């Protein structure tokens, strides 16, 4: 006997928790199709695209210097003007995006992966759990920028220390989230059901627990990207960023600081870019967050 599904007992409409949810077949499509998320995607997309197209769009090399320093916006050949060494700001910003994307694309995944490994270890055994917890505490407690200074002094300047510091910062963020998720999910009845259904321990973890525990991570990714941009910027500001003269959003921004009053356009480009990026990411994060919240 077949019967039509009853979608909405009215009581269900009362609490978001029990509300008829989107079909989780495409768990995040719903989230990403909201107006909020669309705006975010457009913003982020635009920035990323600009970065990828840097070589095409930018008229000049990011390190080509010229006599005219601090040229204003709209100077022929320099739509965004030039910096103190007469370098074209448009191309510096574009290549800056490129550089940042490069760093983030490596650092965040690494950090996330390590964090998740720790989380799995923590979930495996209570002793490991305490240990991992303390490790997270340690990382969190360590003043990141001091660490950045030290690490750079040790490894020498360049992408590596930046990547390292960012990755390190991400570890506890992801680790704690996943750990929490696993601890919650594995108490759920469907997990018991799976075990009784004969599924092996690893299979239960991979097939049942992780997919559900991973939800908050998706949000965290968006957040982490933001954090990454900031760390990169702060490090450049402290003079331990990516090796000059290669531009990054952070380095261009910090180079512009002395001229903030004299030549505001210097700071405008990178600042707007960073803002757009962060705004976009946080919009996406929010949208996802509303969706995955249980």
């Amino acid at each position, binding site marked *: 006997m077949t019967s039509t599904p009853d979608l909405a007992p009215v009581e269900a409409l009362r609490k978001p928790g029990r509300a008829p949810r989107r079909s989780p077949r495409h768990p995040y499509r719903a989230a990403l199709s909201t107006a909020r998320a669309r705006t975010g995607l457009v913003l982020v997309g635009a920035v990323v695209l600009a970065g990828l197209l840097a070589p095409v769009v930018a008229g000049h090399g990011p390190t080509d210097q010229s006599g005219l320093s601090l040229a204003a916006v709209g100077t022929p050949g320099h739509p965004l003007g030039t910096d103190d060494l007469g370098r074209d700001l448009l191309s510096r910003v574009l290549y800056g995006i490129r550089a940042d994307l490069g760093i983030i694309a490596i650092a965040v995944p690494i950090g996330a992966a390590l964090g998740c490994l720790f989380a799995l270890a923590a979930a495996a055994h209570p002793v490991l759990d305490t240990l991992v917890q303390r490790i997270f*505490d340690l990382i969190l*407690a360590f*003043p990141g*920028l001091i660490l950045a200074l*030290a690490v750079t002094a040790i490894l020498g300047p360049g992408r590596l220390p930046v990547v390292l510091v960012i990755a390190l910062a991400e570890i506890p963020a992801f680790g704690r989230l996943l750990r929490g998720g696993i601890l919650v999910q594995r108490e759920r009845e469907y997990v018991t059901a799976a075990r009784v259904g004969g599924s092996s321990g690893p299979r239960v973890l991979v097939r049942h627990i992780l997919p559900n525990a991973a939800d908050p991570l998706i949000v965290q990714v968006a957040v982490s990207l933001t954090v990454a941009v900031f760390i990169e910027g702060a490090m450049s500001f402290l003079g331990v960023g990516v090796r000059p003269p290669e531009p990054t959003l952070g380095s261009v921004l910090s180079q512009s*600081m002395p001229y903030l009053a004299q030549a505001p356009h210097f700071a405008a480009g990178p*600042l707007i870019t960073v803002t757009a990026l962060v*705004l976009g990411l*946080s919009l996406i994060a929010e949208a996802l967050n509303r969706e995955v919240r249980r």
Partner: protein
Amino acid sequence: MRGYLLRRLPSALLVLLGASFLIFTILRLVPGDPATSLAGPDADAATVAAIRERLGLDAPLLTQYTHWIGSLVTGDLGPSYAIGGQVSDLIGDGLGATAELTVAALLFVIVLGTAFGILGATSRSGWIRSAIRVTTTAALAVPPFVSGVLLVLLFAVVLGVLPPGGRVSFLGAPDLAAQYLLLPALCLALPSAAVLGRYLKDGIERALAEDYIRTATAAGVAPRRLLWRHALPNALPPVVTLLGMQTGHLLGGAVLVEAIFAWPGLGQLAEQGLSRRDYPVVQDLLLLLVAVFVVVQLLTDLVYAWLDPRIRWE
């Protein structure tokens, strides 16, 4: 409560031990050594060697480590290598300044965050809500080192109503001290305040959807009280945890903000110490920061339990 603290003590010590080892190793890995930077430009090898010996840098690392831990245990931190003065004095002064800054920032975080959160969650006027959205987003989107420079430019240089940097002790002239404190604290607080606001907003919205709110409404409790006395207390505990985390961020962020506002705190001290390879100062200071963080975590847990009566019983 004491029992709980006792239970947490070992792991806290574990963290500190790990930290001490980490700090020591990192510092020794950093190239350049105190002697050369102390010997100054144009010093010859003999001079450097003499200084190395005076500082006991020629001893094997393990000895240096144990010696350091010893100094911590006895509480006599000894003199600084390069910066000058006793380490305890240096850190004492720095701690005072940083504590001032962090606490002030924390207050801003709490006040602004609460305002953002509550208004964002409950305000009927869409205008206010979107205004808050914009503010929080901006606070999150503008890197502290930019917002800092902007604040200085606006309030100190253009308007000239606040000092651009530096610090006056609160003991001497609280009113002046407050003015010196305002900008750095604000700059430090903004991002965290935004984060807090968003969390609180979510928390309140979730709490307002709960059954017990319906119960209270059905009993005729006024909306205002619903928010303040029924929903808010439930939204707080997770926010407290977040606040604990943020305190860590604040301490970390101090490095940057203190640089921008010439605030003579631990961040500045750390940067100086590191750049001049003043091992004792940097070691003790970093360890102190870690310790502070650990303590804050403990406090957070206590407050959490205090706010949420269930914790005790589950």
